């Protein structure tokens, strides 16, 4: 009777080394899969942080809109001395954002800031100025409607108020920032 010749190598199953290699490959695949899932989760968290920051900025913008227009600058600038209801009675230029952690460089543990085109005069203090150079805010530009860009203080006679709302926070991927820039205008109700 003739028996076909089969080598030992052909008959043997997996060797231990082969099994080990297979397991290593499996582990690497698993590692790649789990790191992908982790990245997706990370990205979602980052997106959520951005959504919270945007929402906070939009809410603050609506709060600015709800104020009497001539008082917006005085109520939300960084100088508490000019608050319409008395020094320190207005909300001021910094605000908290729920569910976000303040950035490490935050001076007061708050995340939000409202910025107007201002300059500090050594004598007069904080001024709303037309001659500030800030391209994002559209400055220099006429704020008082007299068609002249001057170096005076327009805190009491502005008819356009450029504003930047910044939310800066410590996120999962480091310190992050969201900025909303717009211009508020005097508007009146239709009667």
């Amino acid at each position, binding site marked *: 009777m003739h028996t076909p010749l089969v080598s030992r190598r052909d*008959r043997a199953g997996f060797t231990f080394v082969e099994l080990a290699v297979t397991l290593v490959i*499996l582990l690497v695949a698993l590692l790649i899969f789990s790191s992908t*899932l982790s990245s*997706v*989760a990370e990205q979602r968290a980052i997106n*959520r942080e951005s959504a919270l920051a945007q*929402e906070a900025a939009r809410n603050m913008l609506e709060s600015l809109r*709800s104020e009497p227009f001539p008082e917006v600058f005085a109520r939300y600038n960084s100088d508490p001395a000019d608050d319409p209801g008395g020094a320190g009675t207005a909300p001021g230029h910094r605000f908290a954002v729920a569910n976000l952690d303040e950035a490490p460089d935050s001076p007061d543990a708050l995340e939000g800031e409202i910025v107007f085109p201002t300059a500090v005069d050594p004598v007069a203090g904080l001024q709303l100025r037309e001659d500030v150079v800030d391209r994002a805010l559209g400055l220099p530009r006429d704020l008082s409607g007299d068609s002249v860009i001057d170096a005076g203080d327009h805190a009491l006679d502005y008819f356009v108020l450029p504003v930047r709302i910044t939310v800066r926070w410590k996120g999962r991927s480091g310190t992050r920032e969201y900025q909303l820039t717009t211009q508020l205008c005097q508007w009146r109700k*239709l009667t």
Partner: protein
Amino acid sequence: MRRPSSPRAGWTLVEMCLAGLLVTVVMGKAAFVMQSALGLASEETASMHYEDQARTVIDRIALAVMGSDRGTLLPQIEEVHSDKIRYTFSLGMEDGEVVWSPPEEICLDDTRRAIEWRENPGLAEERQVVWSNLVAPLLQGESVNGVDDNGNGLIDEDGLSFVLDGERVIIRLTLRRPEVNGRTVDQTVERIVTCRN
């Protein structure tokens, strides 16, 4: 004396045990990691889904309130929360006059789980649309005990609440949905709007 190797020789019992142990450990760990990762991903997905839905709903509410006249909002009580708001909004100008819309209302329904938008509420020609039916019984962090549990200045507020604060309307919404494993997912969003008309 050297033992002759048999051409049919496979693994020894020790090798078999070792390999079995290794495979079991690795596969067990792999299954655990997969299960954890998938569970986390599923939870995240559900959370994102409800957050998106909450934002969509509150955007619709905010847009409706934004277009309204502050003077026509009902109730007019400030600083007290309400689970409904009634308003009219400007449709434009005609012959120099502002044309106002029919009255509309956004409120919780009788089950307190659904947000309904109603046009001409209480009238024969009333129309209703349900914007969401996942509203939580109370806003996130709140419980019925006569105390402000979540620190927002309101006491025992519903899953949908409106607060009139000067020219601002503060809208808060919590959506809730029980998960398969019995856990619930709450998503809360807050929007501040100023009436434009």
